[in-house]
């Protein structure tokens, strides 16, 4: 037990050090590194948000691209009309509302409907916004005000910190425990007084909020936005890959997976645009087939094996 506590304290300290290092990085790192770090932070935020809901409940959402895109489009529509912090918040709220709607429709039914609905959501939004722009507004694409790279970096770092705080508080609270119980046995959870539908909808909405804010912020990096850029199915695929590879149980599983793959993607996207997606697809399948606990699950198994302890912490 005491060993575990030191480990947790150790990783907390490590995390803190990392955050401080990140916060200071614009002072000593190149412009390219800052841009790369921002992209990594973006993926980490989306992945951890995704894992916040889909991890404990087991309801697999394939909609991150839709919520991220909704955030992007909020910036595209409102970017020139309101101060940016408000725009970012509205981006988050728009995604929250969208998620709440999706949740209200599907989360009172079996999980399969949720998967199906979220799967098609990004393509639906793409078609709808495209039609709207062609038919109603007459223009395709919008221009977004841009802000400098360092500011975007700090904004994403702030969002990341807030997200970590939220996930941690949720995890140690009774609601976090209730979410896990929903994943373990939803019927039983309902029968001991957990309002399962409300909890699912709210948590799903909360996870979408962060994705929306991230989208709204990142939109300022692309000066021109059109539906095809904003609603990109790859943004749904990457967090699923990252979280599953990294492992869903722990806090840092999704973070490790996200950091690893976003770095890889940045590296490979210009050189082998179709090969790397192919390989990522293969990695996802291999991870599902051979690493059900993800990388962290693997590490835990090894730790259990070495220390000989009977029960591993979750």
């Amino acid at each position, binding site marked *: 037990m005491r060993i575990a506590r030191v480990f947790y304290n150790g990783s907390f300290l490590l995390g803190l050090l990392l955050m401080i290092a990140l916060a200071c990085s614009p002072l000593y790192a190149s412009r390219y590194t800052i841009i790369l770090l921002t992209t990594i932070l973006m993926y980490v935020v989306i992945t951890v948000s995704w894992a916040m809901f889909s991890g404990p409940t087991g309801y697999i959402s394939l909609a991150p691209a839709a919520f991220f895109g909704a955030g992007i489009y909020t910036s595209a529509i409102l970017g020139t009309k309101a101060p940016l912090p408000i725009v970012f918040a509205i981006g988050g709220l728009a995604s929250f509302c969208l998620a709440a709607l999706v949740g209200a429709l599907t989360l009172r039914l079996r999980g399969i409907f949720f998967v199906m609905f979220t799967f098609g959501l990004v393509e639906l939004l793409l078609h709808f916004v495209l039609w709207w722009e062609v038919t109603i507004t007459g223009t395709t694409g919008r221009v977004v005000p841009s802000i400098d790279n360092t500011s975007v970096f700090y904004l994403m770092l702030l969002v990341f910190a807030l997200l970590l705080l939220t996930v941690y508080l949720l995890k140690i609270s*009774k609601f976090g*425990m*209730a979410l*896990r*119980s929903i994943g*373990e*046995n939803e*019927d*039983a*959870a*309902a*029968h*001991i*007084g*957990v*309002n*399962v539908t409300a909890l699912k909808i709210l948590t799903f909405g909360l996870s979408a909020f962060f994705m929306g804010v991230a989208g709204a912020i990142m939109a300022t990096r692309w000066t021109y936005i059109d539906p095809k850029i904003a609603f990109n199915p790859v943004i749904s695929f990457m967090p699923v890959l990252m979280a599953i590879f990294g492992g869903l149980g722990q806090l840092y599983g999704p973070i490790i997976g996200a950091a690893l793959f976003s770095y890889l993607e940045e590296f490979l996207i210009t050189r082998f645009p179709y090969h790397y997606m192919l390989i990522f697809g293969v990695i996802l399948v291999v991870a599902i087939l051979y690493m059900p606990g993800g990388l962290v699950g693997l590490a835990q198994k090894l730790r259990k094996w070495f220390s000989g302890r009977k*029960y591993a912490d*979750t």
Partner: protein
Amino acid sequence: MPILEGHGITKHFGGLAALTEVDFTVEQGEVLGLIGPNGAGKTTLFNVISAAIPPKSGTITFKGKTITGLKPYQICRMGVARTFQSVKVFANMSALQNVELGCFFGKKERVPADAAEHAASELLEFVSLKDMKAVPAKDLTLANQKRLEVARALATRPELLLLDEIMEGLNHTEVAQAMELVTRIQARGITVIMIEHVMKAIMNVCERIVVLHYGQKIAEGTPKEIAGSKTVIEVYLGE
């Protein structure tokens, strides 16, 4: 004063009539046995009471208030708790956490973390699982998992407890312990309805028994009356 009443409960699954016009009354403070051959509709009746499934027709009132149409979590918070025939513990959470969840959510009022932990520990002791607090539920024996379900149900502070075959698969010693547990639960003022196949337990622990067969109530009375009833004996031995 009846704590639970059901009128005309009917439930169909596709073409199959699982329950047909079942009426029942449960008196406050009693231990009521619910028996019948397999497929008689006993668990279905529990599922209708706890709102796991809606009835086709009929109403159920709890302490005078209609509860048909409510959601399971609402019925739980009103004071009705249950266990499940196929044990539904939270497998990867510890025994303590399983029960704590019942403490936190069983009633609308907010319960602070240390109070929940305290109450949960007490309940685990009540069901003789004191030493298993930190064990993940999936690593418990079946008998202990059933005890855990009882503790978790009790954590929601119910006035009425529905026990679904808690003695299934238990050996003689464990059955005796379970019988004694039910008596202790009754001593706490909680009304109990128990579905059981273990006749020894039913006859000794229950004050009244209701018998279902093919979804209909065919007999009702004291253990002595039921044991002597020709209809019941035919139903059980005639197969």
